[in-house]
């Protein structure tokens, strides 16, 4: 895009780069916000369908505009700051959550060339940014100066750190197979990986269990059901969001869904070939369909899985959550790092 600004519009290189980057950010962030609004609607529709209800169906055709109505509502609400809260941090916390949720999208490839920042250490960057997500929750819990948010913050801190450990090991397995931590290289490495037919890492005996663990861990990392202990309404009212209202509440909401979409995108990119078409056969002109459509389809599929899980699986108890993270996922993922690297040593580098 820099080329475009430089050559077509005749800007100087630095200015063109700057404009291109800003344009890229807007091109990702604005559709993302729109997607979040729509995906909330989809989420509610899926739960409704599973619970044999109708879901939102009043605002706009099929209730499509429901999220926008909700958004308008919170915009017009008064921002209430509890008198005993730590004012600055209380207001910063939702901004942190929201910003961090957007940050990671910088390295997500939407097509062979369509990446905002095509960096070598893309996957590490994603890991680093997702480990920041916990701050919004912890800070909001502490700054609210109220017991339920505080409990929620404690839970969130422990939960996210626990699951990040095994996510790290899972990502190492993927990096080992792809030989790079650049997300585009990882996607390209998946061409015909499954039996020379399927463009996905998930069709590999060593990586399939990793994908299952990654899917579950991404539920835990985004604190979605069944791991939504941070906002377990039966125990903690609404968790860290208890004291929030109006825009700051909406920011949490947006950040949370942007994170969910990110995790769905990561599932698609790391294990299901990202912007590649699912099969490596060109009988039908699949490769002519733009890559981002495939990616969006895959993200949408994983989002459906997420809301399916949320509607059907009961919430874990806290000790069960910790047990799963530390006693099941951690040893398993560690064992698979050894297995994967051993297998690659034997077959690829041996």
């Amino acid at each position: 895009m820099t080329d475009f600004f430089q050559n077509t519009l005749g800007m100087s290189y630095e200015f063109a780069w700057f404009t291109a980057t800003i344009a890229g950010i807007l091109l990702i962030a604005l559709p993302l916000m729109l997607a979040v609004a729509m995906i909330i609607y989809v989420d509610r529709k899926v739960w409704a369908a599973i619970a044999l209800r109708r879901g939102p169906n009043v605002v706009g055709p099929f209730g499509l505009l429901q999220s926008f109505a909700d958004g308008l509502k919170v915009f017009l609400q008064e921002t209430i700051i509890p008198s005993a809260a730590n004012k600055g941090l209380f207001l910063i916390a939702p901004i942190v959550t929201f910003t961090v949720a957007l940050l990671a999208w910088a390295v997500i490839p939407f097509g062979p060339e369509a990446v905002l920042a095509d960096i070598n250490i893309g996957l590490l960057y994603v890991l680093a940014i997702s480990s920041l997500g916990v701050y919004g929750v912890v800070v909001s819990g502490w700054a609210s100066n109220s017991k339920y948010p505080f409990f929620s913050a404690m839970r969130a801190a422990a939960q996210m750190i626990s699951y990040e450990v095994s996510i790290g090991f899972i990502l190492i397995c993927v990096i080992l197979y792809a030989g790079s931590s650049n997300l585009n290289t990882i996607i390209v490495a998946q061409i015909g990986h499954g039996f020379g037919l399927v463009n996905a890492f998930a069709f590999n005996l060593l990586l399939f269990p990793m994908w299952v663990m990654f899917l579950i861990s991404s539920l835990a990392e985004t604190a979605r059901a069944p791991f939504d202990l941070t906002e377990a309404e039966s125990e903690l009212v609404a968790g860290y969001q208890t004291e929030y209202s109006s825009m700051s509440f909406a920011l949490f909401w947006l950040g949370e869904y942007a994170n969910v979409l990110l995790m769905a995108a990561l599932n698609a990119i790391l294990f299901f070939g990202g912007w590649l078409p699912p099969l490596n056969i060109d009988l039908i002109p699949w490769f002519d369909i733009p890559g981002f459509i495939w990616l969006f389809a895959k993200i949408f599929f994983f989002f459906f899985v997420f809301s399916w899980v949320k509607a059907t699986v009961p919430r874990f108890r806290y000790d069960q959550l910790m047990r799963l993270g530390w006693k099941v996922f951690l040893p398993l993922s560690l064992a698979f790092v050894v297995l994967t690297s051993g297998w690659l040593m034997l077959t690829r580098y041996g």
Partner: protein
Amino acid sequence: MIQTLAFYLFAVLVTASATMVILSRNPVHSVLWLILSFFNAAGLMVLVGAEFIALLLVIVYVGAVAVLFLFVVMMLDIDFSELRAGFMKNFPIGVAIAVVLLTELVLGIGAYRAGALQLGAPTGDAVPIPGRGNIDSLGAVLYTDYLFLFEAAGIILLVAMVGAIVLTHREQKATRGHQNIGKQVRRNPDEATVMKQPEVGAGVEL
């Protein structure tokens, strides 16, 4: 130009937030400033081309260490007035140490600038390979030349872990909340439930 701007932005923020770590009265704020300072230090690392170190700094320090730090500090019940009570008493010593350190810094940098200090030339053959990322170069050294030390460092971490467990872990009897999930999953309805059709008024013998 952008690089210079970014450098000054990060450098100023690192220094400012590091200052705020010691100046803020609330320990939680201190930790949060510390996190900001780590983050900007990572930015500086990116500027010098050490992107791997930068991300490690974020993942390890910001993402894990500082979270646990925050976790602990948040739960501490700190009496601020008590903390500040000894301030005036220790103030002269603090100032003295600061002055000594400042003098050392000024002398050291001064001597270096004046050419009085001769630094050794690196003897290693660690020439950066063009087109190779941080991770590749680091791994190529770490797993060959320094393999022995790398493994030994692993054993250090193991010892640290064993030590922490030995010093804190206490055997507990299984109490409430203990659950054997494998056992629960293996159970089947036949052995867990009994169908009874009691006569009216006869009751059920368990």
